């Protein structure tokens, strides 16, 4: 036990709870309450209402949610596929090649999202590939941003994989493809699932690169929320944020179900 005197222990606990409440509890609670507040002019909100939530689920907003879900789905699946492939390739290559692949795939994590967005505008605004103004450029932006994360999650799991298992499979006559499909990938499945979940969550909340490249026809939910907050509709923005988090959590729960009883990283 670190603190033996009950009075210090109580004091530290109180400070702990106060910091946690100020840092996260109160802000998160405020967003939830604001989403249901008709007005908020005192310490507590008044006139509870579902109007903001109904607005957040109106046709216009449902389109934004659908855009966000589609973009995040495709981007996270592509990012995890490419990242996992790279992680496996790095592990088989070993040595200097592995270090080079590792460095290259960690790089996107160091670059600010706005710079990634500007780069895509610079690269894809003229032939041969004119993607500026399409949904594809938004998907590419989000893929790039979660690529490093997907790679490092799978690479971390691949590194602590027991190499003896593959060698045994190989010595028993299994070809490389069979070893990949029946030994390595199943063992990496938990990390791939974890990477997929967090990549999806990050894509759903992505703002920096998306706001640089999105066309008016493909507006994600965070961009809509920013537009609301910018013109002062904070309660509506809060309701939309709740919807955003709820749909993210729903998809994450689905991924966790698909992963079955595999252990969480």
């Amino acid at each position: 036990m670190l603190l033996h005197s009950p009075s210090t222990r109580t004091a530290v606990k109180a400070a702990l709870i106060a910091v946690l409440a100020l840092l996260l509890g109160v802000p998160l609670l405020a967003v939830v309450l604001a989403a249901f507040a008709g007005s908020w002019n005192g310490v507590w909100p008044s006139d509870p209402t579902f109007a903001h939530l109904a607005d957040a689920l109106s046709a216009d907003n449902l389109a934004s949610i659908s855009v966000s879900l589609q973009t995040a789905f495709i981007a996270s699946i592509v990012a995890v596929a490419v990242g996992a492939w790279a992680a496996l390739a790095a592990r088989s290559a070993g040595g200097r090649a592995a270090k080079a692949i590792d460095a290259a795939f960690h790089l996107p994590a160091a670059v600010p999202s706005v710079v990634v967005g500007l780069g895509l505008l610079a690269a894809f605004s003229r032939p041969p590939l004119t993607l500026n103004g399409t949904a594809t450029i938004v998907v590419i932006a989000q893929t790039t941003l979660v690529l490093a994360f997907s790679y490092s999650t799978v690479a971390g799991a691949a590194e602590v994989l027991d190499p003896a298992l593959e060698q045994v499979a190989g010595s028993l006559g299994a070809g490389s493809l069979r070893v990949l499909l029946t030994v390595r990938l199943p063992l990496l499945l938990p990390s791939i699932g974890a990477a997929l979940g967090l990549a999806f969550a990050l894509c759903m909340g992505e703002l920096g690169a998306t706001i640089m490249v999105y066309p008016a026809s493909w507006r994600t939910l965070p961009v809509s929320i920013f537009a609301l907050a910018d013109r002062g509709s904070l309660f509506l923005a809060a309701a939309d944020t709740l919807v955003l988090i709820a749909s993210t959590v729903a998809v994450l729960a689905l991924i966790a179900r698909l992963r079955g009883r595999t252990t969480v990283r």
Partner: protein
Amino acid sequence: MTAAPETPRAATMRARARWAVGSHGSARVAGAERRDRRSLRTLLWAVPPLAVLTAIFLVPLAETVWQSVSTTSGAFAGFGTWSQALSSAALGRAVGTTLWIALLTTCGCVLVGTFLAVGLSFVPFSGSRVAVRLLEAVVSFPSFIIPLAFGILYGRAGVLNSALAGLPGSPHVDFVNDLPGVVFAEIAYFTPFVVRPLLAVFGQIPRELLDVSGSLGAGPLMTLRRVILPDARPALAASAGLVFLLAMNEFGIIMFTGAKNVVTLPMLVYTKSIVTFDLPSAAVVACAQLALSLAVYGLYRALVRRLSGGSRAAA
């Protein structure tokens, strides 16, 4: 997003895995020719993902650099935009603001994060499990949820101000749309990045060690300084580096606070390219930001490598 700082345990496991691979490799049963062919084939496997990375990330970065020295039609235009941007005060101010916010955020996160991690590990209360789960969940929430909440609570027309208005003298708070608002929001959002690795480290400290330290006459502060914190130093340094990098690159939080006079490099890139359509100037700012971010990232990687190497040597 970024890789979590490596824990000493992962480093040891990695060393073990390397050792296992190495001991098999040293058997040298295969002929050199067969090995060469195999290594060429394994390298070929790395080509498709590297091609994707090049197409969607490396080429766009190169195009950004090229955009800063070219005309809109794509011809080389010289370094006019560069000298113009470098001589203007705006870029220097943005660099200063970016680093200053990142530094304040890092200090705040390290202080608050250490306090929370020590408290949650060694002075647990009913509900501390829920708090840990919440801290872990917040990382996957969109970052703008914090500035949004700050606007609702402490904004000019926010809850706190309307509550204060009833008091005599009608006191007033107004920090959300300014530098303190940005720094507080970033501290709130990035603190979990410090708490999580620290909780992992503290979970491995045997509780008997604290009792022994106490029975030998050390007060709680001395136990904290001499027993608990030395173990946490590598994880703390690594997560501080990570928070600095994330804070330097942060965009959503600053955008949502609507702080017009807090112009960091990402904000400058955004305003120059999307608001004023001055793409060459935006590219110059992006290059400056890129150089700064990559330098900090290089330092961070070197730090993590050195610290994990040190713990491996100690193990």
